[in-house]
């Protein structure tokens, strides 16, 4: 097949490389000059070039989050054009409702700069950082329990931070006055602006070298090129519809499990992700404001991972996202109404990874791993700063766990594909910076889902506080209730736990952390989830089981129970006992399921079946979203009551329960635009 486009097959590769260099160069400037912890410690930032149509043309390959493909910048561009776009202008926004799916929570501060040639915009240089604080109800701005976006900090609608190179001091003062860490935020914004200026210079050099027409058509053609590659790989996926769902536990604010359900349809290289039966928006901050954009970055993440896995060196830009249609009804947790809280949407994003992976796993069983830990929580500690009289906040560690077991390979210990770009923090650096001792930072034994290829082990962190008052926040903790699932006979991985003062009389299992206060000497131990296993554990080589026992990540008891491998006290395999045990396990009807979700989810779904949840969501569809949330809560309470009294055994009379609720809340005023009952 020969390339048919303005840019020839050589210039295309030359320009793709040149654009890549610009993105990488910007990213290195932002990372190294960054001030806030998320930029420095977790690489939560991005730096890209964007086409005049709002598509990402190139994104850094080795720094920053792997989450820039599919960021829709078209709405933000339209807003900036309305304000007037000139050379030397720099725009800024973090607004979730003003940028059409670009910013999806307020800590993500985006800045962009038009790059001109001959009086016309050629492209935009664009960057974002996840700021550690943009004001709001808690330090860090994100609390799972927030209900309104107004609790989550300052909203900056699209605005000019620089006009023709001159700083808008008033806007800056407004921003600085509304966050807890004005200097750090301004430091990060300066770092981004220096990246944008560098990109402008590099694009100018590129135009000088190859001419404006070549550069303009090159931008269009590298996007088309990525799209063609993506379509070709998607076309190898068998056509069909693949259904999968998974849960956000949602209970850190006292709520219920939130179900994300996808129907993924693949047809000749096009993919449609339909979330019609996903739960309504929530009162807590798990809402992900995607605006149901085609190819939205948080929805295509798993598919981009798939493309990069099956085709090394694939062009890396928003062209990869073009074949992916996203259909999310308004009012659901993945496309909420304006005004709801969205801060904790990264938890949702991570579960979305699991959901799409689950669908993809059915389509491509030989490629897609079992579920990873599914948690990418950032564990923050705040202590008094005696020097300044204020307080001091630092990341202790990212809390992530093992990846899922893979076809032909074990999962990776301690880190998972959903957040594979995270780095941890040296224990010595934490202790030098904060009054704590990290007494243990190890792999967590018996956390891996058993399998022919086992899941990756979770982590175990034990921290002692040496300060009079300390506060811990840890957003996006999840998988404390439902396990990471196993695949094709592989078992689900272990759930997470949090224990206060282990091994003392005051020992307490405290579950997920929203905001936790600790006193001097308190010890907190956290175990993160392990990845699900892949394939029948009885087929795992006994030697591999023994190696896990010797490495200390598998107990002898679990080796016998899950794998049927009998390991002796001096750490050898008892071959005869193993053979006998494996035979007995097989004879006892040892299960080999497509997916193993673990007993907790199975028990939960005995009441909250797919049929019931789907029927409930459909029954509520016609109500306005905020009413829906209320009605849903009430109906669920009634269903719980029925179940507790044993009346739900023969099935739930949903219509009857809904009528009861509607008559009880009948005094809620209805508007003409929002039809009341069906």
């Amino acid at each position, binding site marked *: 097949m020969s390339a048919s486009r303005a840019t020839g097959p050589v210039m295309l590769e030359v320009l793709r*490389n040149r654009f890549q260099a610009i993105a990488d*160069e910007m990213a290195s400037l932002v990372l190294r000059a*960054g001030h806030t912890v998320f930029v420095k410690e977790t690489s939560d930032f991005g730096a890209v070039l964007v086409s005049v149509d709002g598509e990402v043309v190139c994104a850094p390959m080795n720094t920053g989050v792997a989450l820039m493909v599919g960021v829709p910048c078209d709405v933000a561009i339209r807003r900036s054009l309305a304000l007037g776009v000139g050379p030397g202008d720099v725009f800024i926004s973090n607004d979730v409702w003003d940028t059409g799916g670009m910013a999806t929570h307020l800590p993500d501060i985006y800045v962009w700069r038009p790059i001109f040639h001959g009086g016309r915009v050629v492209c935009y240089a664009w960057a974002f950082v996840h700021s550690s604080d943009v004001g709001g109800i808690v330090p860090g701005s994100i609390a799972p329990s927030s209900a309104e976006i107004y609790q989550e900090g300052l909203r900056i609608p699209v605005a000019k931070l620089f006009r023709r190179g001159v700083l808008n001091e008033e806007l800056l003062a407004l921003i600085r006055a509304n966050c807890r860490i004005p200097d750090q935020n301004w430091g990060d914004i300066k770092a981004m602006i220096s990246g944008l200026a560098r990109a402008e210079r590099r694009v100018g050099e590129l135009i000088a070298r190859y001419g404006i027409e070549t550069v303009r058509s090159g931008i269009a053609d590298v996007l088309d090129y990525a799209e063609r590659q993506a379509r070709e790989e998607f076309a190898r996926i068998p056509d069909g519809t693949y259904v999968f769902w998974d849960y956000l536990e949602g209970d850190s604010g006292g709520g219920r499990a939130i179900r994300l359900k996808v129907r993924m349809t693949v047809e000749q290289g096009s993919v449609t992700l339909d979330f019609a039966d996903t739960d309504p928006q929530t009162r807590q901050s798990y809402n992900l404001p995607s605006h149901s954009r085609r190819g939205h970055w948080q929805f295509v993440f798993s598919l981009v991972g798939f493309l990069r896995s099956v085709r090394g060196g694939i062009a890396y830009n928003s062209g990869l996202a073009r074949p992916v249609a996203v259909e999310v009804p308004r009012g659901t947790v993945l496309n909420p109404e304006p005004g709801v809280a969205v801060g904790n949407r990264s938890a949702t994003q991570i579960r979305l990874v699991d959901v799409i992976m689950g669908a993809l796993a059915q389509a491509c069983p030989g490629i897609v791993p079992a579920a990873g830990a599914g948690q990418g929580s950032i564990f923050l500690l705040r202590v008094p700063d005696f020097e300044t009289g204020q307080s001091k906040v630092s990341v202790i560690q990212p809390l992530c766990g093992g990846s899922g077991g893979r076809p032909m390979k074990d999962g990776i*210990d301690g880190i998972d594909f959903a957040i594979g770009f995270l780095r941890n923090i040296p224990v010595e650096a934490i202790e030098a910076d904060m009054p704590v001792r990290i007494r243990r930072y190890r792999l967590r034994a018996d956390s891996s889902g058993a399998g022919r290829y086992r899941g990756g082990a979770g982590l175990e962190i034990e921290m002692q506080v040496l300060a009079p008052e300390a506060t811990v926040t840890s957003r996006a903790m999840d998988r404390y209730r439902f396990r990471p699932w196993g695949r094709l006979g592989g078992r689900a991985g272990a759930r997470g736990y949090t224990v206060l003062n282990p091994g003392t009389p005051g020992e307490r299992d405290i579950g997920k952390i929203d905001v936790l206060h600790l006193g001097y000497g308190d010890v907190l131990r956290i175990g993160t989830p392990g990845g699900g296993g892949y394939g029948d554990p009885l087929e795992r080589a006994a030697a591999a089981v023994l190696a896990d026992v*010797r490495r200390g990540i598998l107990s002898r008891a679990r080796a016998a129970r899950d794998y049927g491998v009998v390991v002796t006290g001096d750490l050898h395999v008892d071959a005869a006992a193993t053979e006998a045990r494996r035979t007995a396990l097989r004879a006892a009807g040892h299960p080999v399921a497509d997916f193993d979700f673990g007993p907790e989810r199975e028990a939960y779904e005995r009441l909250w079946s797919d049929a019931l949840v789907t029927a409930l969501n459909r029954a509520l569809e016609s109500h306005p979203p905020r009413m829906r949330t209320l009605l849903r809560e009430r109906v669920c309470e009634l269903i719980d009551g029925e179940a507790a009294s044993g009346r739900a055994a023969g099935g739930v009379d949903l219509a009857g329960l809904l009528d009861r609720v509607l008559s009880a809340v009948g005094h809620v005023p209805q508007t003409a635009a929002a039809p009341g009952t069906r």
Partner: protein
Amino acid sequence: MGPGFRLGVDIGGTFTDFVLLDEGSGDVEVLKVPTTPRAPASAVTEGLRILAARLAIDPAAIRSFVHGTTLAVNTLIERSGSAVGLLVTSGMEDILEIRRLRLPEPQNFFTDAPVPLVPREAVRGIDERLGPTGAVERPLDADQVEARAAELCAGGCRALAVCFLHAYANAEHEAAAKRRLAERFPGVFVCTSGEVWPQRREYERALLTVINAHVGERMREYFHALERDLRGLGVASAVLSTKSNGGIMTARTAGERPVETLFSGPSSGVIGAHWVAAQAGYPNVITFDMGGTSADVSVITDRPVYSTEAQAGDFPILMPSIDIKSVGAGGGSVAWVDREGVVKVGPRSAGSEPGPACYARGGAEPTVTDAYVALGWLNPQRFAGGGVPIDPELARGALARLGDRVGMDVEETAWAITEVATANMYARFTPFLTSRGVNAEEYAIVAYGGAGPTHACLLARELGLARVLVPRVPGALCALGCLVADLRADFVRVFDARCDRLAPEALERAFLDLEAEAGVWLRREGLAVAAHRFERSAEMRYTGQSFEVTTPLPDRVGETLAPVLEAFYRVYGDVYGYVDRDAPVEIVDLRVQVVGVTPKPRAHPAVPGRGRPAGPGTPRRLYWDGAMIDAAVYQRPALRARDRLSGPAVIEQDDTTTIVPAGFRAHVDPQMNVIVEVQRQ
């Protein structure tokens, strides 16, 4: 004592290179012999015998013997060194498994985390604890250390590494453990993290310690054998080894600290390039070493730039080494066309077996070298001094097959390959140069390696720089670097101070302490040096940042810290394009590099020619940017100082071919370098 000889030897993967300098005449003799991987010392003695016989010299007349070897890095990459046991602070036993978490390819479902160099079964926790300032919070029990080590040795460990938390702040626990281990396990190689590199960051420090232990025994035996063999041949001078930091050390020290030799080969090439450029009057250069599998660049701004982010195989190397960026774009890199019809080059290399198609060793895929041949840039009869026969028809055939798929003829395809290879280099090198604060236009390129001088002007054009320097011995610059390197060692101390709260005397005192330590090292090396100096630097950042910039500092801290801050602002501004003079700045750690200046060879200006080079012979038809052109062909050995020529031209020599494109001109300088420059209109 009259003038003698200096010998530099670089043991590479395929060849061992020798450069012998006659101090009296300034003559340089170059030799290549095949490397003997199983017993690398025997290629050295073999080469020395050949040289001594060829030039009729007595090995005793060799005053200086410096060599570099890839033995440590190969041992590490093959993981063929000693089985290591690791002792860590309890609770941290999975330190090598957890790493820094981030996946090598975060989105690739098939990616693999690096396999730890020490299996988890060979790691033991020790119940001791220090705080971040070095205070003892839980004392060490040496009996427990001995008991754990006994288990590890019984399990087959031949070397022991010790890495305790916060050992950079207080080395006493590690030292006590080492004393006990040395006493009870005499044949076992023992090293501690504090003595290897006392910097904060436990994973990276543990890795350095483990690597040192892993390669230690083999390196110690190797240096021992080499020294014995050289003495047997009558060499009386000290035996020295090159280091990753571009310096040299005695073989005895190298046997204790072999981790410092990991990047000594490429670093030594940079030192050679630096020397050549400085002699020629170019203080700021980008070195460009292009060989069969990769193209490597580094930066010299008056002196080489150092990195603490180098990578050896799977592992980050925290110790300062010369900052080299490597891209998989060499002469052997394979060109291909993807399913969308886009032309790609590399990263796969045809290596030397089967090698480029034109080698006629069975390679069917076109490589960068095949492109050079088809473009008429290389002389098939003279490739590698005539040592590698080239069949241009095989190159053309391979290119034609590729070109058919994109509708281009052989020459167009070949030209496209050079363009894509250059774009690959540009894409990786530009962010690298930027993060080092380099504005490429202000630099010259020093081109070496087999393909460096062939490709340098293409790269220069993309980077927008105007001058390329091709040394006299571009194929043996690593060995040349051995001849001119100084004794160098690095010392680090964690300092942690904000400049607005720091007394200048405290900083001076800390530097003096570190210099005292460095001085002890230099004396222990026991070599006569012409002079010595201490180069101070500090890792500095704005308070709140977590990446530091390495800031070279003056020799003395004066009355105020203003010069220290100014130095920081200068470096910071170069890299990031802005500075903030109000924000607080902090010093994370202090560095001292001690330099024992070795006597340098005298410059011997060459006898000038008459300005018009001998030859050229029959012009050659070659392809350049869409057209066949006639290029003059010159022989490098026939060129004389002050000779001038204009592109398009080809300069041939045994170890490389220099392309001087149209629009460039070249002259030969008094040190016999070829300087290629953009011709001003």
